């Protein structure tokens, strides 16, 4: 819990400031809106974080959203395929994408930055090609209203993406912090060579990390597609990989690998959404949105630095 202390304190301070500035922050409607987005962004941020822990990076997330959204719309709307099959198909596709990234990074030893950057370009291009650059939508969900309701609805007043984040987060927490594979992942990130010589199957761990990242991007991508209910192939999810990376770094992951925690990543993702919510609720001009985000991330990282330095 030590690592997340800094970000946790800032998160609480931020939330208090916003709720004092505009009590509507704590209204049910606003909490629902914000936690819905936290759910979607949190899920893929966990994937980005796990990759960062292995000292890698995944830049393809935003383009995966576009490609997946376009295909999902084609399967459901134009091909009228039953939604469970359509969902399984796109998830298998993201799994395959992650496997390709992982194989090239672990077996062929090509730098993750390059592989996933190529992914970013290729999937975006494919999404635009398949859709003919036409915005793909889900309309009123004829034939798959159940899926639409599942992705955008609430369970006991809690948005389903947020519930899914709790489930995914718990599973990832057990995997990363309570299983031997988690220890392996950290070891690979700390020092790949040392991990290899202590008998860890480094290649398999790297492969696993990229598969997890792509699969979580796939799950978040379905939620995101139904959140907007339409996918503009040239702009859907543009730069969203950076939200994942920012959430991970804000949550205590080091880009040098071997450090980080699930709770930190989720808090980081939550904070990024609260910041954008704050801009709207406190009446800050939306043009300042990115500037505010940058300042808060910087403050978070600096505070983390000082809190941790005091220990030594």
């Amino acid at each position, binding site marked *: 819990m030590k690592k997340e202390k800094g970000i946790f304190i800032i998160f609480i301070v931020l939330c208090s400031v916003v709720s004092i500035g*505009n009590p*509507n922050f704590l*209204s049910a*409607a*606003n909490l629902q*809106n914000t936690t819905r*987005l936290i759910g979607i962004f949190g899920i893929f941020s966990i994937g980005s974080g796990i990759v960062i822990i292995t000292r890698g990076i995944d830049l393809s997330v935003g383009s995966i959203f576009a490609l997946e959204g376009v295909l999902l719309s084609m399967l459901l709307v134009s091909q009228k395929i039953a939604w469970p099959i359509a969902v399984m198909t796109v998830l298998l596709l993201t799994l395959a994408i992650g496997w390709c990234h992982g194989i090239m990074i672990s077996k062929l030893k090509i730098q993750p930055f390059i592989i996933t950057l190529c992914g970013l370009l290729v999937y975006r291009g494919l999404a*635009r090609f398949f859709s*003919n*650059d*036409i*915005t793909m*939508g889900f*309309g*009123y969900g004829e034939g798959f209203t159940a899926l639409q309701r599942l992705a*955008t609805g609430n369970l006991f007043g809690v948005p389903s993406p947020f519930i899914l984040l709790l489930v995914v987060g718990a599973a990832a927490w057990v995997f990363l912090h309570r299983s031997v594979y988690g220890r392996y992942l950290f070891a690979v990130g700390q020092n790949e060579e040392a991990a290899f010589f202590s008998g860890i199957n480094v290649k398999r761990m790297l492969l696993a990390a990229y598969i997890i990242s792509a699969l979580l991007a796939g799950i978040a991508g379905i939620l*995101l597609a139904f*959140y*907007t*209910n*339409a996918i*503009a*192939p*040239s*702009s*859907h999810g*543009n730069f969203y990989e950076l939200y994942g990376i920012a959430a991970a770094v804000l949550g205590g992951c080091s880009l040098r690998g071997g450090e980080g925690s699930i709770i930190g990543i989720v808090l980081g993702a939550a904070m990024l959404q609260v910041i*954008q*919510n704050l801009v*709207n*609720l406190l*009446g800050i001009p*939306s*043009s300042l*949105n*990115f500037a505010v985000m940058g300042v808060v991330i910087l403050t978070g990282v600096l505070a983390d630095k000082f809190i941790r330095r005091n220990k030594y």
Partner: protein
Amino acid sequence: MKRLPFVIALLSLVSCNRSHRPTIAFVAGAATDFWTFAEAGCKKARAEIKEYDVVFRYTTDGATEEQKRIVDDLLANGLNGVIVAPLDPVNQGPFIDATSEKIPVMVTDSDIPNSKRLCYVGTSNVEAGHYAGKLIKEALPAGGKILLFVGKADAQNAKERIAGIEEELKGSGITIAGIRTDNIDRVRAKANVSDALVSHPDVNCFVGLWSYNGPAILNAVKESGKSGKVKIVCFDEEEETLRGVQNGEILGTVVQQPFEFGYQSTRLMAQYLSGDKKGLPANGQVIIPAQVIRKDMAADYLSKMAALRRK
């Protein structure tokens, strides 16, 4: 030397692509439905004018340097006339002038009146803003507050639409409570609306200035359960917007006719290049009127759009 066959293959691929007919290029904005419809218009024009080849190019949003590069590349390949949709009309004047010295240039979508362009083909966004203003007055007969949603408030067409709305609302007792921007991100666009429903409960009319703002407003308002209480006025012709109009959830949407942008500008350019200069308007502007789509017209318009998309 091992690479020689590849180089030769690459060169032959490039040289194959050259067209031998005189070429007209249409350099559009980002790949959205709007420009897809313009492309359909260009294709229709190409089918009618056999003696010219027509190429259509999309660009990335805000990337004016990309438009310049595309035009330069096409020029190197032998281009006879170009129609540009300037992404930044305020600062792209010199680029239009420099190109005009080599080949005839028309601009579409946003005008650059002081440049050396042949003419402008497009809608008056100020006029479109006036139409939206009339819809807003209809939505709030007793006055009230409205919020505007747009991708970038500093884009020329956004500024003109806002100016048109402001002029129309003068003295009507309706005030603009704010403008929310989303940087062309649909997720942010919808979140902005959800946030506004919480932070501005007194606002009872939302206006979406760009195409995707319509569906974003519609979905967020529906999810909050405030359908009917918050009136919605939109621009452009996204399918969900039109469906919303059809269902009475959106009061109306102001559409331009991008198909006509593509069709008329290409025809006009072909005419001009063939030596017929009578088609050019004296004031340098071919205005394609905006339309207001209401509930009774939505079904017709939807099927028209569906037919265009299939092409």
